[in-house]
């Protein structure tokens, strides 16, 4: 069986061949299965962005391999091109990369490059626009006339319209207000539910990752420091803090309650989950 994405000994250097040569990622071995929602966390400079830039061949490994559906993406030109359509990458602050005259053209840019028929392109643009909540009356407008939040939806629609097997988001909620953040998290969850696509999310927000991910990969010092379920990774709070990360506030609350001798679990990552546990505990307390 092949994985949707697999890296074998993946290594990339910056300033290669100079005295300043440093490994941006070093011997990374990962397997990502079809349909998974994987969160990648790590402090700035830990290698997260370099890693995902290899997943669709934006960067070429200095050593090691990237396999998409079991095929080395650097095997030949044709494979590389195909894998760029298979793996869609939505960068941080993607709204700064809009460039077309109209919103429609911006969303259609990817499908056009895929040499699809006009009818198919139109269908895809409409589907992606509807899904991301881009209003029909905005399609003929210049993307630069939209608000920041609307622009981000257009940019995301532009990646979704390629209907990639794997969709990667680099810090999708950065700079959004709480309402925008929640809307985006729901959008990503719905997208995955409806399409069954593999989704990879790079984020600094431990809360966002806890809410979405099936599996978490932690990058530190250019290597994979931990990987596992949210439970497995978030239970190692001290190690995460040592890597410049943290755990969600709710997780910290439960850790401190345990330290005070309360019989509560430590694997609590959302307020909803925490409130349900405490409700029971407090009822029991008042019944005594």
């Amino acid at each position, binding site marked *: 069986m092949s994985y949707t994405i697999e890296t074998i000994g993946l290594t990339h250097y910056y300033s290669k061949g100079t005295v300043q040569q440093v490994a941006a990622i070093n011997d990374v071995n990962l397997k990502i299965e079809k349909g998974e929602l994987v969160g990648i966390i790590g*402090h*700035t*400079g830990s290698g997260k962005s370099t890693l995902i830039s290899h997943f669709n061949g934006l960067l070429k490994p200095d050593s090691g391999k990237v396999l998409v559906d079991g095929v080395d993406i650097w095997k030949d030109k044709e494979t590389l091109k195909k894998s760029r359509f298979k793996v869609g990458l939505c960068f941080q602050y993607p709204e700064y990369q809009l460039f077309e005259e109209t919103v429609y053209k911006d969303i259609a840019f990817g499908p056009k490059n895929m040499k699809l028929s006009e009818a198919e392109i139109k269908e895809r643009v409409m589907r992606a626009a509807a899904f991301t909540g881009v209003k029909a009356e905005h399609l003929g407008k210049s993307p630069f006339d939209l*608000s*920041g*939040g609307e622009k981000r939806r257009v940019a995301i629609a532009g990646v979704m319209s390629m209907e990639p097997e794997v969709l990667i988001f680099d810090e999708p909620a*950065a*700079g*959004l*207000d*709480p*309402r*925008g953040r929640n809307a985006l998290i729901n959008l990503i969850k719905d997208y995955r539910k409806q399409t069954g696509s593999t989704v990879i999310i790079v984020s*600094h927000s*431990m*809360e966002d990752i806890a809410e979405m991910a099936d599996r978490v990969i932690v990058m530190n010092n250019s290597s994979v420091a931990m990987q596992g379920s949210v439970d497995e990774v978030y239970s190692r709070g001290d190690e995460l803090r040592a890597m*410049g*990360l*943290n755990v*969600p*506030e*709710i997780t*910290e*609350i439960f850790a*401190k*309650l345990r330290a*005070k*001798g*309360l*019989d509560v679990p430590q694997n609590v990552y959302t*307020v909803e989950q*925490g*409130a349900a546990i*405490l*409700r029971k*505990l*407090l009822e*029991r*307390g*008042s019944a*005594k």
Partner: protein
Amino acid sequence: MSEKIIEFENVTFAYETEEEDAPVQFPALTDVSLTINKGEFVAVLGHNGSGKSTLAKLCNAILEPTKGKVTVKGIVPDTEEKADEVRRIVGMVFQNPDNQIVATIVEDDVAFGPENLGIEPAQIRKRVDDALKSVNMYEFRHREPHKLSGGQKQRVAIAGVIAMQTECIVLDEPTAMLDPKGREEVMQTVKRLNKEMGITVVLVTHFMDEAVQADRVVVVDGGRIVMNGKPREIFSNVEKLRSFGLDVPQSTELCHVLGIKEGVLDVDECVDEIARLAGGAL
């Protein structure tokens, strides 16, 4: 009676765009009155497009009110000279650290502002050293800014403002692009400058856990100030904040949904409250 440093009196600000020949005005702020006192740490909250960044830019004369008046230490910046004077009193730090660094060496970047003020070299040297020490970046003074982390770059940007000997710093979402450690570094720095050096701080943010650390929280919605009070008062109104597209810290939310206490601000308060109530369950 505390001394005022920034005062907004019935301030309206409208952006103007040209559409089909006739200029169209989009009001970003409407009839805002607000006083910031010397030495205060004020957090400004609001969803994207609420007008909070416009409010920040009016504080140091980057923008000029369409109607009403902004006064900084008694100065109304209605001429270029007076606007410069205001900018020496109120410094500004923006969201993206990469857009506000101008030099290729950290200490040159911090010296940029004072040099423009025409201050003598020996004095500049001292200001730069002091400013870098105050943000804990002195040991990085010979480094290249682009090789620093986001949190370090933001602290260099803050040092650049401190070196101008500004009395007030306005920060517009300074931590939005930073990782948890970077955010923590910037918040510690901002709080220290406020407490130890008495610098007035206006912090525009989307992070509720940052806002709870302020002396006062101002909520902007639809270009108007809709809430203004101590963090505990503000965060006691979970539903109201939500109606403005905002959120509350998880500690606040937990105590709120359990119905045990309103206005809880941080993890320790939350833990104490739950532990007290759960006493019977121990």
